[in-house]
């Protein structure tokens, strides 16, 4: 482990090698975060079953330090969106995301969460969670096998490794605004797009008349 962290450019005397390492703040900070990612207990659909299998004895997610599934968003670092995102559910998902403390990560697990999947054409389906919350890793598959999810998690670790304290969004001086929670009207409404919706609805009505 010490080897993993130490900076090869700075020599450490041999007799201290077993107990001293010289490293960067970024490295040690990233290393501790990537080795204890706590996912949220959050299953949406079929993909959640494979997520549970990933956590079970055969695939054993705890090999990566991620077995501590938390039932509350306040204690979680990672949201695995495992399943179809429906219009009726998306306000809750966005709210859960907003409740997670930073640094927080999102994995879109499976075809549905990534882009709507087999149900994309459905009238109650959101074509991918990335329309509402930022996604870090997409895991393809329907459902992705546990191996694929583990691969996605490793990719997330790699992503964390490459981050720097200087430019991550949660240490910026300006505060991060929560994602506006979508509203259920005659159809799903994204508060960020009210102006656009109003405009387009007028246009569509005009076109229909013409």
């Amino acid at each position, binding site marked *: 482990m010490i080897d993993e962290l130490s900076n090869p450019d700075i020599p450490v005397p041999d007799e201290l090698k077993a107990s001293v390492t010289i490293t960067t703040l970024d490295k040690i900070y990233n290393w501790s975060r990537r080795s204890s990612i706590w996912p949220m*207990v*959050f*299953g*949406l*659909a*079929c993909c*959640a*079953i*494979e997520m*549970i*299998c990933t956590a*079970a*004895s*055969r695939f054993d997610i705890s090999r990566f330090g991620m077995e501590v599934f938390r*039932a509350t968003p306040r204690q979680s670092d990672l949201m695995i969106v495992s*399943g*179809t995102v*429906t219009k*009726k*559910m998306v306000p*809750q998902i966005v709210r*859960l995301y907003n409740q997670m403390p930073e640094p927080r990560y999102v994995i879109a697990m499976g075809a549905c969460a990534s882009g*709507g999947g*087999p*149900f*994309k*054409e*459905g*009238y*109650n*389906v*959101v*074509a991918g969670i990335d*329309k509402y919350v930022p996604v870090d890793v997409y895991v393809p598959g*329907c*459902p992705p*096998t546990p191996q694929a999810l583990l691969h996605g998690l490793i990719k997330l670790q790699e992503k964390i490794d490459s981050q720097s304290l200087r430019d991550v969004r949660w240490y910026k001086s300006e505060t991060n605004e929560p994602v506006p929670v979508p*509203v*259920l*009207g*005659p*159809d*799903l*409404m*994204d508060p960020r*797009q*009210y102006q*656009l*919706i*109003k405009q*387009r*609805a*007028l*246009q*569509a*009505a005009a076109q*229909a008349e013409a």
Partner: protein
Amino acid sequence: MSATAPTVAALPANLAEHFPAGVVADTRKGYEGYVVGAAQLLQVAGAIRDKLGYNYLSSVTGVDYPESNQIEVVYHAYKTSGGPGLNFKVQADRNDPVVPSLVGLYPGAEFQEREIFDMYGVRFDGHPDLRRILMWDGFAGYPLRKDWKEPFFEEDLKPFASRWPGGDVRRSEELDPFGANVQYPPEFDPYEWTPETETAIYKLIQPKAGNGNGGHLKTDKLIVNIGPQHPSTHGVFRMVVVLDGETVVDLKPVMGYLHRNHEKIGERNTFLQNMPYTDRLDYLASMSNNHAYALSVERLMGVKVPERAEYLRVLMVELTRICSHMWAIGFLLNDLGAFQTPALYAIKERELILDLFEATAGSRMMCNYMRFGGVSRDLPAALRDENTMDFLRDLVNNRLSYAIDELDRFLTNSEILRSRCIGVGVLPAEKAIAYSAAGPLLRASGVNYDLRRADPYSIYDRFDFNVCTRPNGDVYDRYLVRIDEMRESVRICQQVVAGMPTGGEILAGKPQYNVRVPAGESYGRVENPKGELGFYVVSTGKTNPWRYHVRAPSFVNLTLLGEVCKGHKIADVVVILGSIDIVLGEVDR
């Protein structure tokens, strides 16, 4: 059992005798049953239940026929003593459809009628709580009407001209004026819009402040929302609970958070394209979903399934039942507070079964294995080879029984399990039947009703197995029924492995990607791990189904949740829900 039940053919005289004015036989080609006038419906249904003995209402659904300007409500009733069913329909004017509600006669119709209201806008006169169920209040339109188009609508039927044979694929977002999967009424202004959602349900169960617990203490009742994101709800399901202290006074399930529009998509798909979609209904039991859908379409097509394919089907379906019950038991223990450890034991053997599925069908969970007239693939060559059949033999002869015995040994006499489960969530037999409960839920209430015996399909009549029942109808009995059923499934698997023909066809005829299905209606049902799964399919003789309805056991079983939970502590609600064993993919479809 089926031998003693009167056949359908004996009935026309009966029904017509009873109601010369209100009932006519349905003579459309390929249709069966009767058409009942809306005015006579209550009377006729009462006679069907009480005089003819069809005490179990399996399915209620709607079909839209814009050409005759009618919406038809279709009922399928059965006898719990077994035998074929009776199918009757009511036709309502499409512009203002009103049908009397059957909730008074068959309480199990409550959610199903709400679903028809939600999807077709049919108003059920006398329904106690007619609100939208899968979509939210305030949603615009009745999605399953044939003239209602979803935002990403491209064409009525698949394959779309843009995709096949040309393969000119583009993103659906490019076609939609809003660039997303949404649509709004003309000149809609979101700034002016006021939300109306959720008020209805709270009004319905508005707690009255006052002396809830006997008088001397002044207590308030409290509304608690459990879900849709809660570990105990097995997915995205919500319960609105009114509490008096810790005691449940009222409970209303709220669902639709995973409504993925199976039926709308299914009516655009070709018949075969629906097969992989059925996998995603009860995603813990994809093989048996395939089976139910294949059976109902095969009934219309009139194909005969080859011998080896029947054996393969039964093998896969019974292994699926074991997987599903193991899962149910493991997660019931989770709900009891034994967090994760029992579940890990319970789903250990499931992985071996999934390996077999993956080797055979190509996928662990979404098997998409069956075809009309057979199955898509034979067991992998290695398994058919006599020497390496050992894996399968070892699985069904040793490992599975061992795993079940292990669960039994660890759990059945556990003090905690017994004290939390015995006497909790009691469901008497009459109530279970009235509420159309199905599967282990029904059999744990002492009703000997298992479709594999009551209305045999496939080749179940060849196997020696028992229908497992228990008398008390509590959570503990539901647990025991599942343990018993797994043992019986293992027995069936052993007989399959011993008796399976070694070679031969696995699919009748040559593989076809686009089957043409003769016009008519068909209701095929199987005993799924969760209960009776039915597919109501209407064909117009084309390659796409006109109507594709799923009678989902998890959905119908939830009708009685509120009733069973009343008077229990809030912690027991979680356990009762766990013992009903729902899968949200199937509840919301």
